[in-house]
């Protein structure tokens, strides 16, 4: 692509075309393909629509494109309400060169992440109740820095504690289309293990975010 060719196209071709009608769907598919290929991050349908000529239907084009890449070396994957192209997982062994060493997460961080993912939105007190220890300084911070969790809505209980939810980047990292696709989620829910069950004879623990040392001591007081 040369420097001069593109601006021409940019100003003429799509503009002119859009005055009459949207490009044919095969052409739209090419556009979606080009945009997804160019970006390392997932791209939302809204973002696609904004970038493509007026009248395009990126959702429709995505259906075709996804099918086209089925079984190929790279696949079109859904990440929340966005889409991305990712290499097929079975070819990971070819990619030793591309592997970026990531900082090892502590056991506490991994468990906290799992609890947030499976219980979301989850308050700090709930995480501490499940793990039976205080969430250490920095654990939440580290997960936020990785952009795997973010703040959700405040809980409408006394103290209005903040909640944590997982992010699209979390979904992207673990190859999940949505948080509903977490492994074993249904079974856990059916077994009642995702219920917020308070200790008999106490008020619900979800409300008691207020103390910094919520968790251990609070949990076992009666």
């Amino acid at each position: 692509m040369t420097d001069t060719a593109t601006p021409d196209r940019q100003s003429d071709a799509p503009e002119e075309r859009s005055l009459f009608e949207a490009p044919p769907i095969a052409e739209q598919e090419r556009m979606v393909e080009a945009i997804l290929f160019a970006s390392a991050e997932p791209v939302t349908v809204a973002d696609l629509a904004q970038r493509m000529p007026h009248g395009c239907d990126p959702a429709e084009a995505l259906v075709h494109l996804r099918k086209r890449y089925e079984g190929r070396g790279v696949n079109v994957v859904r990440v929340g309400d966005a889409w991305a192209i990712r290499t097929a997982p079975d070819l990971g062994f070819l990619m030793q060169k591309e592997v970026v060493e990531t900082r090892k997460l502590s056991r506490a961080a991994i468990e906290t992440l799992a609890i947030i993912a499976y219980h979301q939105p989850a308050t700090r007190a709930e995480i501490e109740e499940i793990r039976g220890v205080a969430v250490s300084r920095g654990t939440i911070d580290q997960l936020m820095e990785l952009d795997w969790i973010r703040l959700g809505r405040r809980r409408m209980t006394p103290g209005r504690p903040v909640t944590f939810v997982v992010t699209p980047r979390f979904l992207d990292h673990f190859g999940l289309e949505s948080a509903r696709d977490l492994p074993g989620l249904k079974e856990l829910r059916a077994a009642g293990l995702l219920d917020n069950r308070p200790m008999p004879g106490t008020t619900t623990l979800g409300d008691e975010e207020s103390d910094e040392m919520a968790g251990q001591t609070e949990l076992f007081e009666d």
Partner: protein
Amino acid sequence: MSDPSLFQEDPVSVGDRLAAEALIVDVDGFEGPLDLLLTLSRTQKVDLRRISVLQLAEQYLAFVDKAKALRIELAADYLVMAAWLAFLKSRLLLPPDPNEEGPTGEELAAHLAFQLERLGAMREAAARLMARDQLGRDFFARGLTEDVTRVRRTHYSATLLDLMQAYARIRTRDEFRPFAFDRTHVFTMEQALDRMRGLIGYAGGWTDLMGYLPDGWAHDPVRRRSATAATFAASLELAKQGQIELRQAETFAPITLRRKTH
């Protein structure tokens, strides 16, 4: 109280002692009492739903006793849990008191079993999550993103963390304001002393005390009051030290002072 399946009564054999120590040294590796309980419960080799909480309580209490015998310092939360389990154990063993309010021993035991099962389940879920194919390890994003250098827009970014940190920074400053006494309208005796020591050498005859008020402190009533009090106190101090003489003709008359000549 000790459980023969895990610990034996003293004297212990060297092997047992080593085994016990290994477990206790591992306390560092435990993520709190609930984690330790979960590990102990595995020795029962039954479904977590069918676990004997009474037996588990005994195992835990034996563990804590052992740790004490070996003079291992246990964190407070382990001891809190031990106290609670001792309480639970007594509830489970004694016939229920019909007059007593609150949950029964069985209800508390069932809840503990639930907590252990839930922690075990979350741990398994965490392991399954981490065992998934991961971006940047098993599958990959585009290595070369397209760069078109012609259209350049500046995009200002700030993360939520930046925002919160900024706010924290400002608020921390605020928080300390009440502790750092607001001194803009306070003239201290030390300041007055410093000022007078400097000026007194030049004062030959009797001069009005009020003449020693610093510039800018003579008009605003709040500042004037503070400066007058400080200057007066300082003059008393200097008189006591024998550096000046003080004089007042009558009550409420102006106070005058002069350097004391030796």
